[in-house]
């Protein structure tokens, strides 16, 4: 590729696919579904990220890592985080879900759609299938976990604890 080549959106997406989530590094920010939009034009790149959780302490790290990676592609890089649309766990890609399972995480359940009831709680049944042995015979031990985005489960079949990426 020559130095004069026009930077394409695709090259930006490929670069973003190399940026890991700091809390679950086997997943990239693209597989996590955090990238809302990529704009490329005239020596500049602008990327919009959707924060996975409102209080996610990793957001600033992610933003900086994305900016540093893209600065190799364009002289002017802008990385914005936005709540203009909510990130939901449904945005995690099939590849991302596969990688979660391989790292010992149950992927989030599909979100229920439609109007949220007033005191909506997450559905406890069916419980997440065990990422190690695949058994559906599991118990939620704790709705909360070591980071904001994880819950803790116990597999009654293979008798191991595991985590699920929260369904939000």
């Amino acid at each position, binding site marked *: 590729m020559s130095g004069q080549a026009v930077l394409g959106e695709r090259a930006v997406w490929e670069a973003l696919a190399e940026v890991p989530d700091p809390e679950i590094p086997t997943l990239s920010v693209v597989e996590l579904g955090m990238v809302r939009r990529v704009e490329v034009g005239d020596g500049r790149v602008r990327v919009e990220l959707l924060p996975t959780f*409102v*209080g996610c302490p990793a957001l600033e790290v992610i933003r900086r890592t994305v900016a540093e990676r893209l600065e190799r592609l364009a002289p002017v890089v802008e990385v914005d*985080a936005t709540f203009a649309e909510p990130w939901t766990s449904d945005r995690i890609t099939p590849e991302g879900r596969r990688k979660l399972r391989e790292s010992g995480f149950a992927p989030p359940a599909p979100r229920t759609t439609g109007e949220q009831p007033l005191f909506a709680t*997450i559905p406890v049944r069916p419980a997440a299938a065990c990422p190690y042995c695949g058994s559906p015979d599991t118990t939620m031990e704790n709705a*909360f976990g070591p980071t904001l985005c994880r*819950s803790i489960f116990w597999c009654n079949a293979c008798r191991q604890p595991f985590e699920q990426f929260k369904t939000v």
Partner: protein
Amino acid sequence: MSTSLPATGPEAAAQLDEPTREALAELLLAMADDEFVIGFWDSEWTGIAPLLEEDVAFSSLAQDEIGHAQVLYQLLAELRDADPDRIAFGRGAQEYRHARLLDHPRTDWAFSIARRFLYDTADAVRLDLLAASSYAPLAGVVAKMRREETYHLLHATAWVERLAGGGEEPRRRLQDALERLWPDALCVLAPLEGDRRLVEAGVLAEPLADGEQRWLTGLAPLLERLGLPFPFRRAGARLEPAVERPASPRGDHSASFEWLWGEFTSVYRSDPEAAW
């Protein structure tokens, strides 16, 4: 505190007329202070909760709530063209506008659960009133917060059931806590000076007083089934409280809160001009 936050709404803020902007600022401050203060009380259980699982849960709840407060302070700062850190940490204790429900210390486990339950359910109603807000930056944040709150509601409801059916002492402690907290719980959805203005502007779906009725109507079946304190009388379709809401629902804060304020502002106050 503000560095990692999404650029939310300076343009949207500029389009509001002055009375609406004032009313929205009052609402945002109340919400942000509520989340901030309950977050700090929650964090007090880290390391000393009755179960390891609850050390994790309360630490995570605290992080969620303080994260929500952070974004709400950011929205408020854009409205007022101010520094969010200064709003969060740079005020005197009596300038905070959290509900009186959050003035109590953590007390015992049943008390902390009872408070979380009352707060989480009232807050769910408030978020519901803002879900379709005409103020887009707030609607976006609220959509995200509501999804996270489904985990809080699961936690609070499960623990209320567990303590209510958990034998004589847990049940008695939960009952005592609810009885003590009900008057102050009525402070969370107490009318704000500008909430009618916010309804007219489409920022809020209905006045907080109507939201309060929906909250109580929604809670009644669970509390009645569990035989827990629910001090309200039915007057037609309305539920009238048999306890009195404090005259100053978001002021006149307690000595306990002043102590907590001393803790959570101590680093900021040591050097307010420092760049962290």
